[in-house]
């Protein structure tokens, strides 16, 4: 005989050897219809319950994404709730912070938030921090560096609060919703993916709880602990504003046309090339002017990367760009394309731009067009701190794409009002000159001396080449000499380099 009863001793011996219990069959089957069961799934709770269940304690790190940009409602909502519940001394690690996050000032003053890690700061929050609001300096990382720091554990997240435009009761979440109750859309959730994967606890906030299974989800239920239904996670109409508006400024258009001419004559404008445009009116507009060149020469791009815009989507739909790789959808058209088009792929911040992630997309990028607040005579770029010493921008993927691309082009006007954009030394170092190849201004194009072959190609194409020092001198001759800024002695910000080293610090401005 060889029944299970006969094998009992052997089972017990095997269990003992493996250090396991012997199976005892006490299973009670739940016969609730599954459509009802999923609605009762224990993950769907209120925000307060989710916070309590997550085990969040004073001093821990909370994280957020900024895919709704100026329309984001999650950060203010969650931090207000945390303040109400009496939390103190929290470390807020957002993929970025914008003007709309001004209410954080009060939470910092009240000791709810005592440390911040972000890619950028803008508006009143940035101004206050520049004047020394916080004791602890803000840690700034690029998008690629943030993703990698989360993966490596350098930036450990205790609880991630991630807004999603759709989520099912088990936590499958996306930046769009295909249901008829869809309230918001932000497209890619690229910056939220490292958080969801590596945070100790992940809470999804959604304004559209959909039936299981939420298809084409960016975030998997396996990474989600709780789901919170809220009235609104964000106003999608405010995504395409501020730094990613569609420009009508004639000077931006002139710069964009000139940058497109540089791309087309750079030697990289070949069938199968890949392309990215950074935020800022002029850089985003370059795509429009490359389009005609691609049609005329019969050139097609293999992929476009990054902040995907409606211009990129148009070229993709026309067959000029084969695939779109999207870490952040810059407008509603891009977000809808991500939802509907299988060749438009979302990507996590790591796989987008981490230096130490071998497969990150930036490593396979040919051309990137980026903006700048300041460029100096050594081709160093600042995109974070204004020429008045006040923080007013974001690192974004600037240093990641400049370093990894075969050709990095900076577009900036010579002057913004009375502020020079080509200077002796940048106020804050964000993207080292060793990674920058070309600077396009309305007074001529400067090529990094490292790239003589590039300079020769552009000259041969009849593009006006100038020395970068000529641009600096021209700016000075128009505006006069600037008085030095009244920096204090307090460090209000630390800029991390791509490899995890410290690149620069930002001092406070004393009034």
């Amino acid at each position: 005989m060889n029944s299970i009863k006969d094998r009992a001793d052997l089972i017990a011996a095997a269990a003992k050897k493996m250090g396991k219990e012997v199976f005892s069959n006490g299973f009670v089957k739940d016969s609730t219809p599954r459509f009802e069961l999923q609605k009762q799934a224990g993950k769907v709770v209120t925000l307060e319950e989710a916070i309590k269940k997550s085990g969040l304690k004073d001093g821990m790190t909370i994280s957020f994404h900024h895919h709704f940009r100026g329309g984001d409602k999650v950060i203010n909502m969650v931090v207000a709730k945390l303040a109400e519940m009496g939390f103190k001394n929290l470390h807020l690690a957002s993929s970025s912070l914008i003007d709309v996050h001004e209410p954080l000032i009060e939470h910092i003053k009240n000791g709810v938030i005592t440390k911040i890690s972000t890619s950028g700061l803008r508006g009143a929050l940035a101004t206050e921090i520049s004047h020394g609001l916080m004791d602890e300096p803000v840690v700034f990382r690029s998008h690629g560096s943030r993703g990698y720091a989360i993966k490596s554990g350098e930036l450990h997240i205790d609880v991630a609060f991630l807004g999603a435009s759709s989520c099912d009761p088990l936590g499958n979440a996306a930046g769009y919703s295909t249901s008829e109750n869809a309230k918001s859309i932000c497209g890619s959730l690229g910056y939220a993916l490292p958080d969801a994967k590596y945070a100790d606890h992940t809470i999804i906030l959604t304004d559209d709880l959909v039936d299981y299974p939420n298809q084409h989800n960016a975030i998997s239920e396996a990474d989600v602990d709780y789901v919170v239904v809220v009235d609104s996670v964000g106003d999608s109409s405010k995504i395409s504003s501020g730094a990613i508006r569609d420009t009508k400024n004639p000077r931006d258009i002139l710069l964009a046309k000139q940058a497109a001419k540089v791309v087309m004559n750079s030697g990289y404008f070949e069938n199968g090339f890949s392309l990215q445009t950074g935020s800022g009116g002029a850089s985003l507009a370059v795509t429009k002017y490359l389009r005609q060149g691609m049609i005329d020469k019969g050139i097609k791009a293999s992929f476009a990367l990054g902040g995907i815009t409606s211009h990129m989507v148009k070229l993709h739909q026309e067959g000029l760009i084969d695939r779109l790789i999207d870490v952040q959808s810059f407008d509603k058209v891009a977000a809808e394309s991500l939802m509907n088009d299988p060749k438009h792929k979302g990507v996590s911040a790591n796989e987008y731009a981490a230096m130490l992630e071998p497969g990150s997309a930036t490593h396979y990028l040919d051309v990137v067009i980026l903006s700048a607040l300041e460029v100096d005579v050594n081709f160093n770029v600042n995109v974070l701190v204004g020429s008045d010493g006040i923080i007013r921008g974001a690192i974004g993927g600037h240093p990641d794409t400049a370093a990894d691309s075969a050709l990095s082009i900076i577009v900036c006007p010579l002057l913004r009002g009375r502020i020079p954009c080509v200077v002796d030394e940048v106020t804050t170092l964000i993207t080292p000159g060793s990674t920058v190849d070309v600077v396009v201004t309305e007074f001529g194009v400067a090529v990094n001396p490292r790239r003589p072959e590039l300079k020769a190609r552009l000259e041969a194409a009849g593009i006006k080449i100038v020395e970068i020092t000529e641009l600096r001198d021209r700016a000075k001759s128009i505006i006069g000499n600037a008085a030095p800024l009244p920096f204090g002695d307090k460090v209000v910000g630390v800029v991390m380099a791509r490899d995890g080293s410290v690149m620069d610090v930002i001092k406070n401005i004393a009034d």
Partner: protein
Amino acid sequence: MELKNAMAGTLESGDILIQIAPSDVDGLHIELDSTVAYQFGEQIKNVIINTLKELGINNANVKATDKGALDCTIKARVTAAAVRSTGVDVWA
């Protein structure tokens, strides 16, 4: 020189709004609000003062709201405000 309240300029980026008013006390009193005050405040005040003096205006209250205007723009706006304030055409 007899002055009336007058202004010239706009609050657009790259421009400056100049408001001139008569003053009971001697001298030119400049109240400057500028987006680039840290670096260019003194330079902007000097351009305003020199432009007014060249036009023979030595006593006035001037309110200047600057949005990063270049010197040539500041000079043009101050001149236009002065002409409106004095009624004396300097371009004829």
